[in-house]
């Protein structure tokens, strides 16, 4: 998980969620790209964030795009965040003894526009927080930042500010993370 660097977070507010990541891709201490995408849209109202080994980030984002498209075609409806989280969890556990080195985070609004955020470890153990969830190289620093900055029922603009400050400060404390940040608000 420390080979390519990268970190992500997600936060829940009042009828909104944000998900963000840094933009660095490295090979240990060498920075190779400053525009590496780690947050991917699944539906209009649901995003997944994939920190960790870059090859797994890309493979998993394509795999989940496939699964979600098939879901949409078969079920004739968009996938909900909780269903997506469980699907990702069972996909990761399917590789229990040769895992993907990635700790996904899901953030989205369900069909009633209720906010959902979920995190999990590399073999699919789901976490159902009410407030925020973090993953990646700078997760320890992010835990500290989020714990102090987050408060319940933040409006979308305030939530955006909170998440950005948390992400940028934590990124500054970690050499493998940084080179800019991306935040998506829903």
């Amino acid at each position, binding site marked *: 998980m420390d080979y390519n660097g990268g970190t992500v977070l997600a936060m829940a507010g009042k009828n909104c969620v944000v998900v963000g990541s840094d933009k660095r891709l490295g090979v240990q201490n060498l920075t190779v790209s400053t525009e590496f995408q780690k947050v991917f849209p699944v539906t209009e109202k649901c995003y997944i964030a994939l920190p960790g080994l870059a090859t797994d980030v890309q493979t998993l984002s394509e795999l989940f795009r496939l699964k979600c498209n098939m879901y949409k075609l*078969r*079920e*004739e409806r968009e996938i909900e965040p*909780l*269903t997506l989280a*469980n*699907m990702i969890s*069972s996909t990761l556990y399917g590789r229990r003894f040769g895992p993907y080195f990635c700790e996904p985070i899901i953030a989205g609004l369900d069909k009633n526009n209720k906010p959902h955020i979920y995190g999990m470890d590399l073999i699919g153990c789901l976490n159902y927080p009410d407030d925020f969830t973090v993953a990646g190289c700078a997760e320890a620093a992010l835990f500290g930042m989020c714990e102090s900055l987050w408060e319940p029922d933040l409006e979308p603009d305030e939530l955006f500010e909170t998440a950005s400050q948390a992400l940028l400060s934590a990124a500054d404390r970690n050499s493998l993370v940084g080179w800019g940040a991306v935040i998506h608000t829903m």
Partner: protein
Amino acid sequence: MSDRYSFSLTTFSPSGKLVQIEYALNAVAQGVTSIGIKATNGIVIATEKKTASPLIDDTSLEKVANVCPNIGIVYSGMGPDFRVLLAKARKAAQKYKRIYNEYPTTGMLVKDVASVMQEFTQSGGVRPFGVSLLIAGYDETGPVLYQVDPSGSYWAWKASAIGKNMINAKTFLEKRYNDDIEIEDAVHTSILTLKEGFEGQMTEHSIEIGIIGGGTTGFTEGKEQPLFRKLSPSEVRDYLANIS
């Protein structure tokens, strides 16, 4: 001339039919009648429990069955074929749950069951299932009733009958069905429809009724939702008393 093409399932007859499927439908038409009615707040499925002899212990026979908490199923045709499909349907529902941690919608389950039935119309060395199924479920889009035939084709109904008396029963239902029917009325109507073609005395042991929706909610999977359940003999007796 279709006799020459009737033995092998995987051969089309010149008229473009798969004769084995036609014969399977004949087998279904010999089975006892089953009814399904969709109400605004639930669904009823019902069937006759016709035993060959009064010595048979009919409590051991289950024709209206549960597939998963929100989906029920009933059949007309060959009982053993039904048992196989029921087992496959239950397994398919659990398999779906292993991935998504929620039960499939009725439409998804019906697609699975129907594709199993279709497989048996295109593989070598097997015969089609001799059953038609009525699958009733309640999911987020509301109550929905599907019929699946031996060919694997399925379609949704507001009210339907399969089996021996299906033509008369469907005519009866067409007259009595309206879009605003509630579950209580639907149970009542289904009993009356079964009565139309019933030979012998209708008691709480000779019919099976299953309902989903209405008042039958239960706490399952962490939330309150409509559950499928079979009416107990005493409840059936009450309904029967009301119609006579």
